[in-house]
């Protein structure tokens, strides 16, 4: 007998993508899925903001210029979040680009909501 596992259907909307990854929004779950560095990770509102803060706070210039022998790896660990990223400098730049684009799109979505959907005709 064959077990049939029925997965709940989740609707994703792509928020932003680059050639290195993509971020999707799930309206039904009120969360985002980040497809980056070989995995798909779920982030809720709080964790997405914490990720943004963590990534934006990395001093990329300092990483590039310092001459210490430590490997160029950053561990992005977010409190109370199941995921953690261990990224090289190039990946950090790519993730930052992805997040920046995403937040611009989310802002744009907010503006569109204000102009189109929040109007009572």
């Amino acid at each position: 007998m064959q077990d049939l596992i029925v997965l709940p259907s989740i609707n994703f909307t792509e928020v932003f993508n680059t050639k290195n990854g993509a971020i999707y929004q799930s309206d039904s779950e009120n969360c985002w899925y980040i497809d980056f560095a070989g995995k798909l990770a779920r982030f809720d509102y709080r964790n997405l903001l914490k990720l943004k803060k963590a990534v934006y706070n990395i001093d990329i210039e300092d990483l590039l210029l310092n001459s210490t022998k430590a490997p160029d790896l950053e561990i992005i660990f977010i409190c109370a979040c199941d995921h953690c990223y261990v990224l090289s400098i190039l990946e950090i730049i790519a993730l930052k680009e992805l997040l920046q684009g995403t937040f611009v799109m989310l802002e744009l979505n907010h503006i569109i909501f204000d102009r189109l959907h929040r109007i009572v005709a």
Partner: protein
Amino acid sequence: MKDIIRAKCLLSSDVETLINQQIKKEAHSSAIYLSMASWCSRNGYDFSADYFFKQAEEERMHQLKFYKYVLDMGGTAISPDVTNIKIEYNSFREVFEEALDQEINVTQSIKSIAARCHKEQDYVTLEFLNWFFREQREEEYKARRAVELFDVIGEEGTGRWQIDKHVGQIKYEGEA
């Protein structure tokens, strides 16, 4: 696509950051007033010490008001660390001059939050800030009046004793 971020938080991240900075400023103010109270008490100006204790309480109350507002609007309020609080002052007058400076700084920084809110059309926060503007009117008046006492009464003879006695009686009777 749903506007999830707006549903979670009314404040923009810029306004939230500014209010968190303000929370820190109010905490700092409160700590400075406490330090001033200590200096006054040590130097025999007991009425002024009481005045500064009251001011410290008020600043703490302002801090909490901002703090709760950020939380109520869905933001993240950050409990600040307060460092570099001065312990010694050169003169009785200097204490009050710094107190006035302190209040001016607070007013100016609330004004800059309001400017940002105008830019973003965040009328909700603007309305919230109105209470603080009214409060700052009183705070600045009281601080300015205290410094004025030094000129009006003069520090010669029993002047400082007189000033100390009158500081606690300063009241702002302005229209609401």
